[in-house]
């Protein structure tokens, strides 16, 4: 285990600022997920922690030791790549054994460690094969094996599940979570998949434009998004965002009014955020059903409320509705998110 401290960590490519004075502290044995869209700086941050990208400014510490200029092979980190990055000329056994061989461990130690890792990942029967004889899921298990065999204090994972199909991704996600629990190491995991982030993370750092937009637990990020970007990035279907103004202690957009428990100042231009599932049956909001998308376990409804406000609702499958129906539902004011329109931050 190790604590990772990024102090004003910066990476620039000429005039382009990829990571902008990032402040982040990752605790011993914590599972930190860096979440964000392409180009947000999450992989660059991971690469700087790994030592694969030179740090333009700032400091990086593992526990109390500064590793800003330490080359990657001396940082004692393991990394799993989206592309697996297995050595094609080596067998699975040789791939997993490679980091140990480089450390000069004895053949018997290596054999024992490789056997244990293979058993843990259920790939013992694949040890004699080469990477091109494996499926995607098997290759990613081998890549995990190569990482865990060293027993490093820090695991870095760069979108390790992105190339797998949905079913495999689900089972591998479980495997990674189990590994984290067993190894008790510090994990830094990069993804653009919110479901992966929510299910795996102890804390999530949502990034955009080289900056952390919000750093919090998955629940905190979902329940109290710091700004419109974070609110919109998490949740499926995405949060409903409606522009309007505060009038008479309520959110107002034309004829659409929602009373607020703690309204901002009168006349302020705001953006209302409503999670699709934060509605209840039989309330005072009425809307016309435009589209019904049954998913089996639940139903998604696209509705048009007063004032031309379009909303997507995630409702229990028992709610029966057809396009054209009038629907009444309730919205708990405590579940609403209000953002300032100009600064896009939470009010």
């Amino acid at each position, binding site marked *: 285990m190790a604590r990772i401290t990024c102090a004003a960590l910066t990476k620039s490519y000429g005039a382009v600022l990829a990571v902008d004075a990032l402040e982040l502290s990752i605790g011993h044995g914590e599972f930190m997920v860096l979440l964000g869209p392409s180009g947000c700086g999450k992989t660059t941050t991971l690469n700087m922690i790994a030592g694969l990208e030179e740090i333009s400014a700032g400091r990086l510490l593992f526990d109390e030791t500064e590793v800003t200029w330490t080359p990657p*092979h001396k940082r004692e980190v393991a990394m799993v790549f989206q*592309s*697996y990055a297995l050595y*094609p000329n080596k067998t699975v056994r040789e791939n997993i054994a490679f980091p140990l061989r480089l450390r000069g461990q004895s053949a018997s130690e290596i054999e024992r460690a490789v056997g244990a890792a293979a058993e843990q990942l259920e790939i013992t029967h694949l040890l004699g094969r080469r990477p091109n004889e494996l499926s995607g899921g098997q290759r990613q298990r081998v890549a995990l094996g190569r990482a865990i065999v060293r027993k490093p204090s820090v695991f870095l994972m760069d979108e390790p599940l992105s190339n797998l199909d949905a079913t495999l991704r689900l089972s591998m996600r479980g495997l990674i979570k189990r590994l984290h629990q067993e190894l008790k190491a510090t994990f830094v995991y990069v993804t653009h998949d919110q479901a992966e982030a929510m299910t795996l993370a102890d804390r999530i750092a949502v990034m955009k434009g080289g900056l952390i937009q919000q750093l919090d637990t998955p629940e905190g990020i979902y329940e109290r998004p710091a700004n419109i970007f974070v609110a919109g990035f998490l949740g499926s279907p995405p949060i409903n965002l409606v522009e309007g103004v505060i009038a008479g202690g309520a959110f107002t957009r034309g004829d659409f009014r929602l009373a607020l428990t703690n309204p901002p100042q009168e006349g302020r231009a705001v953006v209302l955020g409503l999670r699709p599932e934060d509605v209840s049956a039989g309330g005072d909001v009425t809307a016309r059903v435009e589209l019904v998308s049954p998913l089996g376990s639940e139903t998604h409804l696209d509705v048009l409320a007063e004032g031309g406000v379009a909303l997507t609702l995630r409702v229990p499958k028992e709610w029966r509705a057809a396009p054209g129906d009038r629907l009444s539902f309730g919205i708990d004011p405590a579940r609403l998110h209000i953002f300032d329109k100009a600064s896009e931050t939470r009010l």
Partner: protein
Amino acid sequence: MKKPLAPRVTRAILLTLFSALFVLYVAGPVAWLVSSSLQSEAEITRVPPNWLPQNPSIANFEAIFSAADRVVTYENRRQGEALTSSFLPSGAANLLPAMRNSLVIGLWVAALNLLLSVTAAYAIAVIDFRGRRATLYTVLATRVVPDIALVVPLFLVIRNLGLINSLGALVVTYLAITVPFTIFILISYFEGIPRDLYRAARIDGCGHGRALWHVYLPLSLPALVASLTFAFLTSWNEFVFALVLTQNVAAQTLPIIISGFIMDFTTSFSFVNAAGVIAIIPPVLMAVVFQRYIVSGLTAGAVKG
């Protein structure tokens, strides 16, 4: 639906015809070289020529290997008679030593070329350092200058180094010619190796030397073999620099000695051709040995494709 028969037959005939023409074009001179080396001078110069030897003889080859034991003087040279192939050029005894010189130079050039090119190409292709592009362009720029323009400057450099008439002179010169090109070949190849493999190697504990040794070299076997072959063949065949930088048999190479046979009082084509056959044996052997390494797809399965 199956394709109609006529176009398929026409296509097959055309393919066979052009393939045969191509083989004839490429292999014809070599075949004639081998065939004529087994014929007497009289047979070679006959019109029309014998494409295949009527009375195959290895007399020309025997002459090459026994030349060192025979003293060729003005008198005994005239005892021989060119038309019956008993004629022996005056420098015949130099052929085998020259071959040894060529081989030594070729092997040194191939080995040193690989050592220099691999490390330089790795640095340029993989390590992100200031001046990386400028280095690459400088290396490539050296190949823009035609070799012939370098003859005099190189001669002066080699003479001032006191290396004239030494194998070292040719090794250094041939490295100057071949290294930039092999760097270029290897850079392209190294850049084609997935970057994540380099990253994985670095994380697994490799410094640059180990990453090169454990990852880049095993995956670049085809390019390494191509570079090795190129460097060896270039030095094996090179003529102009060898002619200028070596002036006696201690350092002269095969092309110089063989060309000397033609400039003799009389030319023995059969002997020259036999020497030619001997001269092509090492490169052919090299091609046969290494061709199985020149395969693609070595990185299959490395990363998600």
